[in-house]
């Protein structure tokens, strides 16, 4: 049965007389023309057989003809354009927008594995929140010698202006988008924490909507954990911050404006939560309260879900040339009259040298071992580790401590001798600013290519909302490097996305 159905799947490329039906060419049902390669594949085991939790889905997709699958993929592409699910491309004169390519083959995570990840993420966020509170107050973790003082003192993300501040309800990292990757041995690692303004959750919600349109029959027969309640949970978490002062706190989302690359997401989230989407120019601070300019005068705001960086929040406190922020906002925050999510100052935890300490941070505050390990990380400020890094540059990935989006990366095995030498010089000049990690072999998933399924590398960004309690959105954003062989999943560089199913 399995062999027969797979033949249906590949009919269009295997029709009699077609080029691929060369003499001696056999249709191998088990291998399915799909090459798992030397990677961990999220859907197939090493022998090319679907994993137990993927099998029901796989069997159902196989009963569709290849043409049917392609037709559904096209319909999904069209919907994305019509719905305007787009991101802006910086520097594009014509103001063009692009869609993030969406592949209709879902990425599946089995429930037992998800439970472990969920616990792991909750553990990590809880510890990081305690770390931030401690760091801006007593700094016990430094006095106890777990995190070196000089690392914190030299961190770009550490905000002097936040010392001594306790954010409303003691919550710092309200929304987190942790990046997870799986290596060829099947182990899942945390790659980055993203405690500032993680984006991508709107794609999770829209991808799910698209999948329901594309494969209604799959949803009827499979038990997939829903994601649609994300916005309700987020709104609850935001209102919770000021509910002890105001009966129904007024919440707004602060966006840099419609030319920002994540503007679609800002507007989508504001709409789904039914809150105002504001820009800096819509807001004004008077007597320590924050107001919006409305057609009927000024209206007070209690909570701001801000999607602009600390640097731009308030020109009186941070960057003076910021046109995006609101003068006086930090003062209102200090007076406790507005809640900001995420709290200013969380960026310190995104410093990759601090990231390297997270396992010890978890142990220090919670007395537990981390459930999801870090990628092994060498910090270059340490003499012994730096020597190791410099001696093994051809095998390591070197990252600057404070960049995001893959900027300034050196992938040792793919770099030229000259590039490695330049990198070594930079490390020696400023060791604090560099870390190195072994080159991971990211896991792969099948994606729909022209005439067959092919494996492509993926990561996973689950979203965690810290409010009354810590909520982890089941699944998260699966980003996929659509270019053959590529490891770069960023949407600006040819990355696409997939719906992520937590199935039981």
């Amino acid at each position, binding site marked *: 049965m399995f062999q027969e159905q797979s033949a249906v799947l590949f009919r269009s490329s295997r029709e009699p007389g077609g080029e691929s039906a060369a003499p001696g060419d056999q249709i191998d049902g088990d291998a399915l023309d799909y090459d798992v390669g030397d990677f961990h594949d999220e859907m197939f085991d090493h022998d090319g057989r679907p994993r137990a939790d993927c099998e029901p889905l796989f069997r159902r997709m196989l009963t569709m003809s290849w043409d049917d699958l392609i037709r559904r993929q096209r319909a999904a592409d069209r919907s994305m*354009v*019509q*719905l*305007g699910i787009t991101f802006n491309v910086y520097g594009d004169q014509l103001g063009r927008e692009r869609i993030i390519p969406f592949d209709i083959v879902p990425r599946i995570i089995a429930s037992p594995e998800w439970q472990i990840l969920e616990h792991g993420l909750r553990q990590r966020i809880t510890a990081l929140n305690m770390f931030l509170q401690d760091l801006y107050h007593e700094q016990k973790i430094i006095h106890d010698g777990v995190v070196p003082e000089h690392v914190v003192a030299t961190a770009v993300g550490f905000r002097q202006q936040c010392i001594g501040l306790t954010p409303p309800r003691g919550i710092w990292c309200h929304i987190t988008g942790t990046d997870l990757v799986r290596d060829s041995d099947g182990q899942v690692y945390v790659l980055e924490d993203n405690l500032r303004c993680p984006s991508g959750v709107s794609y999770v919600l829209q991808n799910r909507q698209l999948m329901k349109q594309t494969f209604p029959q799959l949803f009827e027969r499979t038990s997939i954990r829903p994601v649609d309640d994300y916005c309700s949970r987020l709104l609850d978490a935001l209102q919770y911050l000021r509910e002890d002062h105001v009966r129904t706190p007024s919440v707004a989302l602060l966006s840099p*404006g*419609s030319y920002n690359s994540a*503007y*679609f997401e800002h*507007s*989508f989230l*504001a*709409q789904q939560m039914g*809150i*105002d*989407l*504001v*820009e800096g*120019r*819509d807001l*004004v601070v*008077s*007597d320590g309260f924050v*107001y*919006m*300019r*409305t*057609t*009927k*005068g*000024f209206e007070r705001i209690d909570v701001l879900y801000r999607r602009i960086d600390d640097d731009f929040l308030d020109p009186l406190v941070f960057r003076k040339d910021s046109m995006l922020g609101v003068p006086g906002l930090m003062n209102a925050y200090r007076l406790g009259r507005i809640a900001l999510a995420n709290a200013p100052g969380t960026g310190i935890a995104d410093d990759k040298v601090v990231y390297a300490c997270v396992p010890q941070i978890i142990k220090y505050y919670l007395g537990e071992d981390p459930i999801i390990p870090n990628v092994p990380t060498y910090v270059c400020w340490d003499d012994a580790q730096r020597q190791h890094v410099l001696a093994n540059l051809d095998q390591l990935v070197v990252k600057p401590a404070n960049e995001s989006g893959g900027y300034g990366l050196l992938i040792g095995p793919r770099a030229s001798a000259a590039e490695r030498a330049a990198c070594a010089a930079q490390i020696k000049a400023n060791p604090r600013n560099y870390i190195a990690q072994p080159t991971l072999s990211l896991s792969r998933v099948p994606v729909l290519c022209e005439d067959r399924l092919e494996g492509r590398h993926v990561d996973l960004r689950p979203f965690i909302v810290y409010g009354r309690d810590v909520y982890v959105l089941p699944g998260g954003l699966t980003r996929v490097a659509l270019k053959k062989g590529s490891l770069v999943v960023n949407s600006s560089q040819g990355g696409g996305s997939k719906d992520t199913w937590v199935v039981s």
Partner: protein
Amino acid sequence: MLSRVADSIYWMSRYVERAENVARFISVNLNLSLDMPGEAGQQWWPLVVITGDDDEFQSRISTTTKESVVQFLTFDTDNPNSILSCLRSARENARSVREIISAEMWEHINKFYLLVRDGGTLEDVLDDPYHFYEVVSLAGQQFLGVTDATMTHGEAWHFCQLGRMIERADKTSRILDVKYFILLPKPSDVGTPYDDVQWLALLRSASALEMYRQRHGRISPVNVVNFLVLDKEFPRAVLHCLTRANDSLHSISGTVTGSFSNVAEQRLGQLRAELAYTHAEEIIAGGLHEFIDDFQQRLNCVGEAVFESFFAKRPLETISH
């Protein structure tokens, strides 16, 4: 509601209405060119004059032909009032207030924009112009339908309505002006079949022919003015538009009609009242074109007052704790 958001909604709505009306302008001329023999049917320059972009046109475009004018008014992205530019502006405004408008409105406006942008070449359009401009004006009306059926009729909707009605009042008056510019009736033509044909084409582009027939029957200039300017019930008539705009303005401010609480209400109320107490015969006696010119200027003043009253930044001192 946020002033910036109200501003965007108002202009989104105006631009969609404008795109629809530019399509109507072009189709009235196309209609005429089919019905009028010889040169009289090939007057394209007046169309540019009516849209008010004659300077812009002259500075960039050398010849005034059917092709160059249709291109200028339909696809020219350097002309801010071409159909494509209007829809792009409408879409940009809609995009900045996506969280306020309904998902259906956004989808429709996005599709509408793509429809025109990817709608074909100038040759395709001229090959079947009737179809193209009908599709455009239908899409404009559908946007209105989607808006009415999916958006709460609250403040945002009233800003939509206000923008649309002010824009429509202006454009209906300009459609009437086609008669002045294009046709320049020779005394010998008045009362001939050509005169009738011209008025018919004009009514048809305002989607007004059937409704006009029900109300007035035979075609006469006085009755056409009566219908397109002073009718209280026909949805594209100037007076009707001003009345609806006035209603929305008062719903926004909460002031009862008949009084005013801001300059926009004052100016619009005055303009509306004047029209409501005017005869078509008086308009024609004073010169239809002169009337329209004056009306458009005063309507612009209403638009400026709307900006001052609702969208412009106010001083901080007006915060009351």
